[in-house]
């Protein structure tokens, strides 16, 4: 392509997109050159074809294909971090609905009720794409479930364990995450949810998130970036999140600012799923300021040991930090 001539791209684009009714081929050929006009027409033709291809949703198709392969147990061995199971509502509920809806409705509903479930059994985070293009990263042991009706009236998904969500904005389809006792409703944002035996913790990274308890919307809190909420037996409490490393399990980024060693070890254990312990109580008062990004656990511990003049002892899966 010749670069020497000044080409009026905006004029060509305006003409090709049908926004310049006062122009015609002859005029444009004069302005931009016949060769360039022909090339741009060809480009435009290709663009039209490409835009037609955008209707095919590759993520959705891949999820559906992978689900089918998994269901037929055609994906085996180590490459199978995902487990897909079917689950249904109780037939009692279904039966009462049959009375209301008739058989056709029942068959439709039964199809919508079959669900998809993902469990991450590995140490490494597992990221899955939902049918709407939203992403969920599952920490070790986390599980999400959703029904085929996902995306019909809303986007409902249930969670056990810890996961980070990146939700595609959609005002008409609220994204609702339910855990055992708390529901989180969002319109499009990113945030971390951790549910365990003690309660549920939500920390917001971007956007605004609504959290409510026991499906009781009147008790709702609206969280802004940097805020967290803890839902436990005693209620729903808002707090300012000061734990910089709450996402380290996912991004392996650790930031320590004059942090006492026991807390440092706690953060590392959560990020790497390790068991590190302090050998002697005399080192508990040590503090450290440093950052790590995408380092291996051995690199992290070596660096800390070097800075604080400690020794690392490795015993099976456990690590012990002791003073020299």
């Amino acid at each position: 392509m010749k670069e020497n001539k000044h080409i009026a791209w905006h004029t060509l684009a305006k003409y090709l997109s049908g926004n310049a009714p006062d122009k015609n081929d002859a005029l444009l050929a004069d302005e931009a050159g016949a060769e360039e006009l022909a090339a741009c027409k060809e480009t435009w033709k290709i663009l039209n074809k490409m835009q037609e291809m955008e209707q095919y949703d590759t993520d959705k198709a891949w999820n559906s294909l992978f689900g089918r392969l998994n269901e037929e147990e055609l994906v085996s061995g180590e490459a199978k971090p995902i487990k897909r199971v079917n689950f249904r509502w109780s037939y009692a509920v279904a039966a009462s609905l049959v009375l209301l809806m008739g058989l056709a409705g029942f068959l439709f509903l039964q199809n919508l009720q079959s669900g998809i479930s993902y469990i991450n059994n590995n140490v490494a985070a597992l990221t899955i794409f939902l049918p709407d293009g939203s992403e969920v990263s599952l920490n070790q042991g986390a599980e999400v479930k959703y029904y085929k009706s996902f995306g019909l009236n809303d986007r409902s998904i249930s969670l056990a364990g810890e996961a980070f969500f990146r939700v595609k904005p959609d005002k008409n389809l609220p994204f609702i995450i339910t855990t055992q006792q708390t529901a989180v409703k969002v319109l499009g944002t990113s945030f971390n949810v951790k549910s365990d035996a003690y309660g549920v913790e939500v920390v917001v990274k971007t956007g605004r998130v609504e959290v409510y308890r026991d499906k009781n919307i009147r008790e709702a809190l609206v969280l802004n970036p940097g805020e967290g909420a803890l839902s436990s037996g005693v209620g729903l409490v808002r707090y300012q999140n000061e734990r910089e490393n709450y996402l380290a399990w996912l991004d392996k980024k650790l930031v320590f600012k004059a942090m006492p060693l026991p807390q440092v070890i706690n953060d590392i254990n959560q990020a790497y799923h390790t068991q590190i312990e302090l050998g002697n109580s005399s080192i508990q008062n040590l503090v450290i300021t440093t950052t790590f990004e995408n380092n291996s656990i051995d690199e992290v511990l070596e660096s800390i040991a070097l800075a604080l003049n400690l020794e690392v002892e490795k015993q099976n899966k456990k690590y012990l930090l002791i003073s020299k």
Partner: protein
Amino acid sequence: MSVAIQFASIKNGDIKAYETLFRSLYPALCAYANKLLNDADWAEEMVQEVFYLLWKNKTQLTITGSLNAYLYKAVHNKCLHLIAHRQVKEKYSQHQQYQNNEVFNADEAMHTGELYTVYKNTLRTLPQRCRQIFQMNRNYGYKYHEIAEKLSISVKTVEADMGKALKAFRQSLAAYNAND
């Protein structure tokens, strides 16, 4: 430019290689199937079926030559099979003629897949507002003055950004053709 996934890695059960292959070819194969079937839903169905069978039968299959060419041929056959069995009844009559004249052209079809990658990558590199304006015009059919109104910007800005987008696509496609 194109993803060179070897059938051997899929035969060995490399699901990642299989996923990469699927993602790189899916839209192009669907467009190709849709050309034969004139039904986007069925087109997607056929392409997924071909990929499903590829994985399911990977150990028994022998593929000599290009894996891409094999997939296009398989989609082509699946579609003709579907038409022959009159499963797309209402569409059948109008496509009977077309079917007989359609000569399989794997090169052209593969070319489409590579162009789509160029298109997507170029789209990704456009500045955000430029991309938004371009998509509003091309994907949703908004006129220049409607875009200007919706985004509270001047028509001149819309014109400039549309020109910027055209230039970017024209140049990346020219670069692709030069390397081909």
